[in-house]
């Protein structure tokens, strides 16, 4: 498909659309449910409650170190399901393409989506493609929705955090956000910066099995970073959060880039990390379980839930001083996911 690009015809529903579907989507994403190409996918009804989520992806650039927009779209939606304790079952895939997008780029993204689906065991079972005229979009926008199933008794929510609970972060902060920001600013850094995009559902299942009843809250700190997500947990639980700055894991190259650009890792997006609030007596077990996995190898205990300071996140600095950690405010951030 060298030198070829997306035409308005590819979204018309006619012959060109069908060709694109069979030569690209069915070829790479094939599975028995998708193969029928009917108007909707028909699924067997699983036992248990369902979790249902949707997210749209507009990241610029569409390819970046460590991933691409397709990977984000699969991982992001799987992770949103996992954060409620659900086992992801299947995804939908909606694409909005800009006329003139290189077909090679599209194929690269579809191949990447297919690889992520295989790796995570979560298939795309239904999809849609539209094309907008040149200048009305930006190469490609993706929407994925996902359905997951919750085992009996699972109740994971930011409301459930209790006083004295311990907060864990499954790895380093800011890798995705800083990778995109430095790409956009045209800055190349010594030391490799790479997005951390990855699915977290297996890590979540390990935690749920290993700590029956002990996991209160799971959240993935994407846009707005760890700072904003912790503020949401504090607000929803009616408790305060206390952090220790020296416990926060950050890669040296991410820290260096943050110094250069005047950014704080606490506010940078992550695409493959989770915050877990667990009961204090199970915190060490939670840390051990996380560190036994690839996803959580660099996990750390970063703080705890406290009473009396509802909705506030406070951090103790290395010198023993304190400051507030407020949520991200509407800064003119570039499109990072």
């Amino acid at each position: 498909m060298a030198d070829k690009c997306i035409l308005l015809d590819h979204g018309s529903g006619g012959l060109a659309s069908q060709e694109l579907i069979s030569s690209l989507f069915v070829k790479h994403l094939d599975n028995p449910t998708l193969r029928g190409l009917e108007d909707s996918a028909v699924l067997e009804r699983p036992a248990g409650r369902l979790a249902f989520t949707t997210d749209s992806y507009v990241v610029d650039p569409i390819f970046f170190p460590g991933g691409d927009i397709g990977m984000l779209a699969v991982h992001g939606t799987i992770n949103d399901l996992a954060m409620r304790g659900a086992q992801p079952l299947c995804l939908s895939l909606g694409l909005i393409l800009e006329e003139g997008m290189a077909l090679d780029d599209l194929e690269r993204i579809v191949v990447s989506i297919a690889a992520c689906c295989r790796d995570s065991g979560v298939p795309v079972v239904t999809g849609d493609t539209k094309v907008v005229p040149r200048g009305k979009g930006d190469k490609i926008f993706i929407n994925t929705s996902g359905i997951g199933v919750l085992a009996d008794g699972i109740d994971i929510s930011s409301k459930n955090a209790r006083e004295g609970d311990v907060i864990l972060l499954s790895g380093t902060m800011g890798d995705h956000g800083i990778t995109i920001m430095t790409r956009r600013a045209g800055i190349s850094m010594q030391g490799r910066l790479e997005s951390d995009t990855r699915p977290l559902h297996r890590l979540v299942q390990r935690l749920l099995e290993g700590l029956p009843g002990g996991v209160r809250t799971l959240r993935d700190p994407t846009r707005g970073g760890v700072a904003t997500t912790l503020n949401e947990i504090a607000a929803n639980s009616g408790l305060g959060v206390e952090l220790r700055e020296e416990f926060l894991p950050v890669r040296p190259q991410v820290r260096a880039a943050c110094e250069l650009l005047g950014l704080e890792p606490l506010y940078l997006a992550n695409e493959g990390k989770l915050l877990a609030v667990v009961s204090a007596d199970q915190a060490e077990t939670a840390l051990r379980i996380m560190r036994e996995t690839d996803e959580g190898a660099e996990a750390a205990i970063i703080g705890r839930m406290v009473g009396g300071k509802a909705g506030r996140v406070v951090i103790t600095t290395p010198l023993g001083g304190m400051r507030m950690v407020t949520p991200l405010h509407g800064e003119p951030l570039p499109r990072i996911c």
Partner: protein
Amino acid sequence: MKYYDEYRDGASARALVAELRKVVTRPMRIMEVCGSHTMAIFRNGIRSILPDGLELISGPGCPVCVTSASHMDAFIAMADRPGVRVAIFGDLFRVPGSRGSLANASSRGAKVDIVYSPIDALDLAARHPQDLVVFLGVGFETTTPTIAATILAARNRNISNFAVFATQKTVPPALTVLLEDPELQLNGLLCPGHVSAIIGAGAYIPFAEKYHIACVVAGFETTDLLTSLIMLAQQIGAGEARVENAYARAVSWEGNTRAQQMVAEIFEPCDTQWRGLGLIPGSGLKIREKYRDFDAEVRLHVTLPPADEPKGCRCGDILKGISNPRQCPLFGNRCTPASPVGPCMVSSEGTCAAFHKYGLEV
């Protein structure tokens, strides 16, 4: 990470905190002039461990904050002109003028580009030959050399659709105004690190002598700041008023003479309006006649419209250190980082933004 970790080490910082407690032997008022210092002091938690008697006052050292409403209105009017594309640093995007912000202008179709360096604005001009790209020059001595270098680069590269709307300011004339103010009884100045890298630590000698005020040039890391506060407290305790340089790894006594020469080649001093401080003679920079082709004010015949400061906003007194943000009736309710009324809230280095973001009592 080298050059960072040794200045942030918790144990050495805690030892310095203990020493600071020992040397503050009388009430003292110290102004941190620079907005980056204000933010660093909050971020490190230094404000929460200050000994009794040591009062830190945040000064006017945030260039966005001291940009007058009249200049903001002129920026927005410029962005609205057909055929003009303005390039700005991100901080300026949401600063309110008297009728909306550049963000509002952008949403109604004005071409507003956020850049990381003036050179990016020049590249933008090269890519958009049909537009006149105007870089909005807001900044202190730290920013001006790169703007000067960009104008020289524009001339060398023969890029004629590039101009600068110069509103940069210089710090020393503003210090004079502050130190002349009878309301603001200061004992010491924590002098800016980046500005001093350009103008040199020697620039504060006349202030130390004339106003008998202790001056210490400070860096931005935890131990830099604590060491500088200790040096100031020792001077004040001993009744001394000298200039000391605690940031010698970046700042020399004479400053960056090459940058100074480049700035003098392109710019000349002029009177300019500061938000909060009013008109300060000789505190602004305008583009010299020789480089008028790159002067947006000349090319687009800009006149500065009269503009009212927002009602009830105390940014003026806050910039002078006379009020602190919590004394402003708008702080935290009508004026927040999400919906700022005054410039001290919108700039990431503004005093109100620092109090709102990090202040424990909020």
